[in-house]
């Protein structure tokens, strides 16, 4: 292997999961001693790519060449011994054991059959000192901050003589100072000739530390280039898959007519939620679909969950129908006339083994009950009505919801809220994972519901859904509302510009438009 050869070449990698093409002819090249950014929205295939590389998944086809030789790791352990060390978001070390033990886990030094603590502690301390971390390596790992724990994970990786370190969202739980320490460590690794694949959703960070960037979308590698040659706007356009000028017209089920908006149903200002949301603002009126746009990690879901009381806000005001509220639990928000369809239908939405009927009436059930007994006649009447109205395809109301297609499951979940007669419906990625036909149908349905008076707050990663569907768009970037665009000005270009520049240019002009 000559010094100019790339360290890692993945080419034409394909991977299918139960009919879903997770990777199609994806590629990735990493030079020795460079920091490569790997970016893409949810479902773009980043983690699948990494898992294929480390042997956690078997690829269906394609080649992987590492250090000049074709490789085919059977498991992450094999990859680690081969010189590839992934460091995961959730640190997978043993919190109760000492720092030194964690670093030498699985290959402890022994002397006379006993563990050689002296040597392990000394080497662990030396190793960490290289990363400017001075700690007592005999203390349990859990005594230290997440940042230090991450350093320990990196030190462990390096001690495996890793030539490629993969960091998946390492900064998501770090504060600014800790992030800069981490970046120093990454630069130090680079100086020692170790390559780093850095996965992050914070674009600013990529520009600070990465040499090159690879962008993935829909299982393909859509762009690779030097970080300095790609400006933020183009990076976002590549991630979202939109040419800056041309956005296909009417590719969604949202049709033109936007009825005049009515009274304000939701007004939230200055929301602060944990580390992810710093200053968010949204307003929704009756008969209005409000789009909440932003890249992954911009705090969209957190805002929705705060309004719904699922993860209460730390600061800021929420007004529903003009009344200041602070729901501490979903049940409180529901009583105030709010519904929320989560982006994760499976984990947060359906009760898989229950029937369509039970799932649909989960929220309204207390109101269908007298003396604790469910009024099944009324329940059936409501279920029949909504199954017809939303054209839900199921063999009967008694079919288990898990047997339905994604689109029909989503309709049942929509009906779960609609039958509670809400004032405000929050939809987090309402059409994710739903096939094209059902998607347009659901989009048309959302419009229809809004026209009948419902206020809708819609989160979506799909720009068309926002530009065509929303009467008003708020753009979040890094936990702040950076733009507030009326329908006419909410072009894909304006939204992406707001995401990229934090509202400094396109966003600012459009505010109050």
């Amino acid at each position, binding site marked *: 292997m000559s010094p100019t050869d790339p360290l890692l070449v993945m080419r034409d990698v394909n991977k299918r999961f139960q009919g879903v093409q997770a990777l199609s002819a994806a590629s990735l090249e990493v030079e020795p001693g460079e920091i490569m950014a790997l970016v893409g929205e949810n479902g773009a295939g980043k983690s699948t790519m990494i898992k294929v590389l480390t042997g956690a998944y078997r690829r269906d086809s394609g080649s992987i060449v590492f250090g000049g030789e074709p490789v085919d790791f059977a498991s992450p352990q094999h990859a680690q011994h081969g010189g590839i060390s992934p460091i995961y978001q959730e640190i997978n070390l043993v919190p109760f054991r000492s720092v030194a033990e964690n670093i030498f886990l699985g290959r402890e030094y022994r002397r006379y059959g006993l563990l050689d603590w002296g040597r392990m502690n000394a080497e662990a301390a030396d190793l960490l000192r290289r990363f400017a971390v001075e700690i007592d390596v005999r203390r349990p790992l859990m005594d230290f901050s997440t940042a230090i724990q991450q350093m320990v994970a990196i030190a462990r990786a390096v001690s495996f003589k890793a030539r490629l370190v993969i960091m998946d969202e390492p900064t998501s739980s770090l504060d600014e100072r800790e992030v800069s320490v981490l970046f120093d460590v990454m630069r130090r690794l680079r100086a020692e000739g170790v390559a780093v694949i850095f996965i992050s959703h914070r674009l600013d960070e990529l520009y600070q530390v990465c040499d090159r960037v690879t962008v993935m979308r829909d299982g393909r590698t859509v762009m690779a280039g030097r970080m300095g040659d790609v400006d933020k706007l183009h990076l976002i356009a590549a991630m979202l898959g939109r040419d800056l000028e041309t956005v296909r017209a009417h590719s969604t089920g949202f049709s033109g007519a936007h009825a005049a908006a009515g009274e304000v149903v939701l007004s939230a200002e200055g929301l602060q939620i944990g580390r992810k949301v710093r200053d968010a603002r949204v307003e929704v009126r009756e008969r209005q679909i409000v789009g909440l746009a932003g890249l992954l990690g911009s705090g969209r879901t957190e805002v929705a969950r705060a309004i719904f009381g*699922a993860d209460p806000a730390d600061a800021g005001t929420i007004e529903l129908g003009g009344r200041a509220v602070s729901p501490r639990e979903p049940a409180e928000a529901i009583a105030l006339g709010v519904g929320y369809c989560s982006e994760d239908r499976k984990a947060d939405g359906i009760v898989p083994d229950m029937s369509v009927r039970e799932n649909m009436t989960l929220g309204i059930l207390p109101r269908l009950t007298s003396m604790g007994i469910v009024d099944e006649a009324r329940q059936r009447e409501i279920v029949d009505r909504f199954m017809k109205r939303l054209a839900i395809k199921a063999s009967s109301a008694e079919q288990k919801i898990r047997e339905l297609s994604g689109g*029909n499951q989503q309709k049942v979940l929509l009906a779960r809220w609609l039958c509670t007669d809400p004032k405000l419906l929050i939809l987090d990625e309402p059409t994710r994972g739903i096939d094209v036909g059902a998607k347009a149908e659901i989009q048309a349905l959302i419009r229809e519901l809004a026209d009948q008076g419902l206020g809708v707050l819609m989160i979506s990663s799909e720009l068309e859904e926002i530009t065509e569907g929303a009467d008003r768009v708020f753009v979040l970037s890094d936990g702040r509302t950076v733009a507030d665009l009326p329908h006419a000005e909410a072009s894909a270009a304006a939204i992406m510009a707001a995401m990229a520049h934090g509202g400094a240019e396109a966003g600012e002009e459009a505010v109050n438009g």
Partner: protein
Amino acid sequence: MADAPTIGRKGASFDVAAFFRRYAALTALIVLLAFNFAVTPNFASWQTLNVNLTQVATIVIVSVGMTLVIATGGIDLSVGSLMAISGALAPMIFLSSFGLSYPALGNALAFVAPVAIAGMFGLFNGWFITRFRVQPIVGTLVMFIAGRGIGQVLTNGNLQAFKNPTFQFIGLGRVFGVPCQVIIMLALVAAAAWTLRSTLFGRQILSVGGNERAAWLSGVPVASVKRWVYAISGLCAGIAGLVVVSINSSSDANLVGLGMELDAIAAVAVGGTPFTGGQATVVGSLIGALLIQLVRYTLLANGVPDAAALVVKGAIIAGAVWSQQRGKPT
């Protein structure tokens, strides 16, 4: 993900395998009954029926509460110890000077107070589990250990022997020839099955077990539902404790309900309620308990020692779990 829903997948044809999976325990019970009618001498008699039902009643009573707990995805290890507490309290009440001076009131109190107190301990289990978000197996382990200790402290570790026909009606009495505890058992099974099917609380139990996060996001008061199922489990254990001491005419906090948690869990498992929660069949637990009991009876009646019967019991549970696993969608 297919677009079309799976309509009429089974069609009109009868799916024998699915039927067997669903009613495995019932089928086994019927086969075993048939075997006994054919082989075991004097099997077809009221006495045999009553002996078996009397012996199984306490297990069924406890497994009714256990089924509800398991339906929420939890488990209750404390039931045996709560039986010991209620079993210790009842004689203390009717043997106290108050109980002896006002026998009617004393006996009434001897029924109500121990059951209520066992229910309170159950409520404590639920509170502990939901408040500190501990795993149910650990949360109820606390009361499993402490509960028997409480029973022993109450009685100074002494055996309380008594003869109180009014109180002991619950374990020895008969209504139209049917033992009282069998009636209680059937009433509880019916009530719990109806609760699961037709009440808000029942539907909420199943939704919490089926997908706790989805239930919470839909406004189901998850913590309160959990607290109540553990309370109900405690109440059932309390009733079972009274039945056991009545049958024995004595109460020994060291022995009452010993190992009951495992018998009840076994009955629920064999009955076909999955431990992942979200689905439950109380009638299944009844059948499960009957099956385990009948296997033991069959072996004993045919001269197989009790020790060997335990091995068979283990095998039945393994078989039940196996048939459940096969029933799961892959």
